[in-house]
C-alpha cells in the first residue's frame, strides 16, 4: 500500500499462484470510506479453447521483479491521469485451468468514467508491456501463445499526441 499526497488512495499489486476473491478485493478498496462512488472490476479468465482448439490448461510465466515494476509504473500513470481513490491489480502465475481466473484489475473513483477508463487503460498496458507469457497445454503438446498485434494497438491508443 502506498499513500498519495493529495487524496487518500492506495495501489495494491500482487502476483500470486493462488486464486483471488473479487468481493474481498473490492471491499479492501472501499472499506470504511464514503468518498467512492464507482468501482470497476475487470477479470481475465482462462478460455477452454485457443484458436478453435480445446486446451487442458495455461501455464503463466513471469519475470519476477520486473512484472511488479511494470504494473506499478502503469498504476502510477493511471493515478496521475484519472482522479482515482484506489487501484488493485492481481495477476496469477503457474498452471491455470479453463474457467479459472487469470488477472484482476479493480479501480475505484468518485465517478464511474474515471474508474472505467483507468481499468481499460491498465489492462491494455498490462497485456502489451508486463512481462508475462502464456503457454498452452493442448492435444498437440505445449505451445507458447503468440502475441497479438491488437494488444500493441490497444495500448497505443492511450498515448496522447
Amino acid at each position, binding site marked *: 500500500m502506498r499513500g498519495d499526497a493529495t487524496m487518500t488512495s492506495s495501489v495494491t499489486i500482487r502476483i500470486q499462484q493462488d486464486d483471488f476473491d473479487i468481493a474481498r478485493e473490492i471491499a479492501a478498496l472501499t472499506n470504511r470510506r464514503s468518498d467512492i462512488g464507482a468501482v470497476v472490476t475487470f477479470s481475465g479468465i482462462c478460455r477452454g479453447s485457443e484458436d478453435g482448439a480445446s486446451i487442458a490448461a495455461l501455464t503463466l510465466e513471469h*519475470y519476477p521483479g520486473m512484472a511488479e515494476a511494470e504494473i506499478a509504473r502503469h498504476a502510477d500513470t493511471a493515478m496521475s491521469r484519472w482522479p482515482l481513490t484506489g487501484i488493485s491489480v492481481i495477476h496469477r502465475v503457474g498452471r491455470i485451468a479453463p474457467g479459472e481466473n487469470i488477472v484482476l484489475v479493480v479501480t475505484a473513483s468518485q465517478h464511474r468514467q474515471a474508474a472505467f477508463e483507468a481499468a481499460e487503460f491498465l489492462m491494455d498496458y498490462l497485456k502489451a508491456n508486463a512481462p*508475462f*507469457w502464456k503457454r498452452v497445454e493442448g492435444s498437440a503438446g505445449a505451445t507458447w501463445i503468440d502475441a497479438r498485434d491488437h494488444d500493441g494497438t490497444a495500448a497505443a491508443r492511450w498515448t496522447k499526441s
Partner: protein
Amino acid sequence: MKLKYFAWVRERIGKSEETIDPPASVQTVEELIAWLAKRGEAYAHAFETPRVIRAAIDQAHVQPDAAIKDAREIAFFPPMTGG
C-alpha cells in the same frame, strides 16, 4: 553481466540465466543478440529472428540500440502475452 531468459527463449537456450563477459566490441542490445547467436545451435535457434526478441536492461524495457555498458542484468524474451 547477468543474462536472464524467459518463455521460449529460455526453453531454446536450455537455461534461465547465466553470467557472461562479452568482448568490448559488443556495445548494444542488438550486437549482444548477434554475439549470443554465434554461441552454438541452441542460441542460434533462440535468436534466429532478432526482430521478435524483446529486451530489458535492469528490469526496464529497452530498444535494440540501447547501450549495454552499465547493465547489471539483461533479459531476453518473446513479446508478452499476459493479462
